[in-house]
């Protein structure tokens, strides 16, 4: 009766992996938070004063009230629900969280949002225009510049920055100037080819 089982899977409510995680995680997160903030330090948590700021994300202006500890990555993912930008290492080592801030590629995990009032941020969600992929997105598809895809939004945003900086003139140059983005699947040949291709189209 394998067939029936697979049918019941298909016919059930269609949840994305993220929706399923969110549905299940709420109570756990609430219970875990307070103990985490005191256990690591042994001292009681101090009061946090929220801060209000504005950010233009992919052309849309947002007025946000945030915890000063939130990184731009956290604001994008948790506050604005723009989960295309990925949290890899969360310590500035992998590049998965790369976005453009005021036109420059940065790692959003090490960037406190409260230090960027008024900033203009571009993320992977903003590249597609009117249903048409950005040339670098197209090139990643054409050259298979990914395997699992987790690092891909960071790779593409970094590639957009790399091309804009004029550092995509040769394969060697691309490899050097894309070195801040780690791909654990090892899709580097496709990534480099995609950046070179998109740079050539500009």
């Amino acid at each position, binding site marked *: 009766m394998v067939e029936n089982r697979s049918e019941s899977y298909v016919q059930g409510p269609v949840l994305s992996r993220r929706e399923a995680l969110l549905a299940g995680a709420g109570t756990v997160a609430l219970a875990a938070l307070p103990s985490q903030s005191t256990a690591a330090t042994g001292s009681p948590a101090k009061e946090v004063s929220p801060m209000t700021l504005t950010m233009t994300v992919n052309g849309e202006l947002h007025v946000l009230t945030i915890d000063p500890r939130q990184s731009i990555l956290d604001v994008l993912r948790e506050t604005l629900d723009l989960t295309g930008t990925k949290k890899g290492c969360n310590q500035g080592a992998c590049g998965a969280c790369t976005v453009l801030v005021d036109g420059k590629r940065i790692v959003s995990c090490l*960037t406190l949002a409260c230090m960027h009032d008024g900033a203009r941020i571009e993320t992977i969600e903003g590249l597609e225009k009117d249903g048409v992929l950005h040339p670098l997105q197209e090139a990643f598809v054409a050259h298979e510049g990914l395997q699992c895809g987790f690092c891909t939004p960071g790779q593409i945003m970094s590639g957009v920055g790399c091309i804009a900086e004029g550092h995509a003139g040769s394969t060697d140059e691309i490899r050097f100037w894309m070195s801040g983005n780690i791909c654990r699947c090892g899709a580097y040949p496709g990534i480099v080819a995609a950046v070179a291709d998109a740079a050539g189209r500009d």
Partner: protein
Amino acid sequence: MLPFTMEKPESAEAAIAAAAGGARYIAGGTTLVDLMREEVERPERLVDINALPLGGIRVEGDDLVIGALARMSEVAADRNVQRLQPLIAESLIEGASPQLRNMASMGGNMLQRVRCPYFRMLDAGCNKRTPGSGCAAIDGLNAGHAILGTSEHCVATHPSDVAVALVALDATMRVRGPEGERSFPIEELFRLPGDTPHLEHTLLPGELIVELRVPGGPYSRRARYLKVRDRASYEFALVSAAAALSVEGGVIREARLAVGGVGTRPWRLRDCEAALVGKRLERPAFEAAAHLATQGARPLQHNHFKVELLPRTIVRALEMAGEVA
């Protein structure tokens, strides 16, 4: 991350007053935010100095002047930096990643904390993080650690690349504090660990880095930075060397040499420099000088290779500098 308050003063005076009262400056945040998340750093007050007029790069006579808030990428791409002090540009490009270079300020680069894994491991002994708790690196995984300037309390290397170039080039730093301004050689910023490895620099409470000044010399153009590391890019140095030479008629008139990845601070090699002066620009002179670099070296269990790699790196860097047209 523990809670903190963020202040954004509009004047240097206000920022200095806050810092003198115990607040920490933050510019790019690439070191501090990371270590705050790990709770290695636990500041209760931060002062965002990015709105202060401490950026920019300018030329004054023979000097190159770099604002403390200039970003690494901005300095590396600057035409005057590339023209007058290519060593600065090259050492910057060899450091960190493009993203981090867009974020990190030059002042913050000087004050970045060590990359010893035990420093950020809260359950390991680290005299730098927790004075008196011991040094887990001395008998631990220490392939990346220092062989020069170490003590029985700390063996961590200073991680900056551009600081090595700045120290080689006799750069100075101007700081402003509650008592006014002062300037001093950047080399004097960095303390040896001794028995107080938690004290890393010589800035006084509240002092704010204003700018870095690099004097021009006859060796400034014939200068190269060589970084040897486990991968071709985006990795800290196992050994690095900044070499600058002034040459007339095939004879070395002046030399500047500093190394990274091997010392507890950016390591100037004045004995090696002196040994090069008056010699022909040839490999035997480079090898004789490089041989002096490991005097007093104290290798650990896993970093003996640096005793051999250091002179080889110096010889190659001198060759590269000599090849500059």
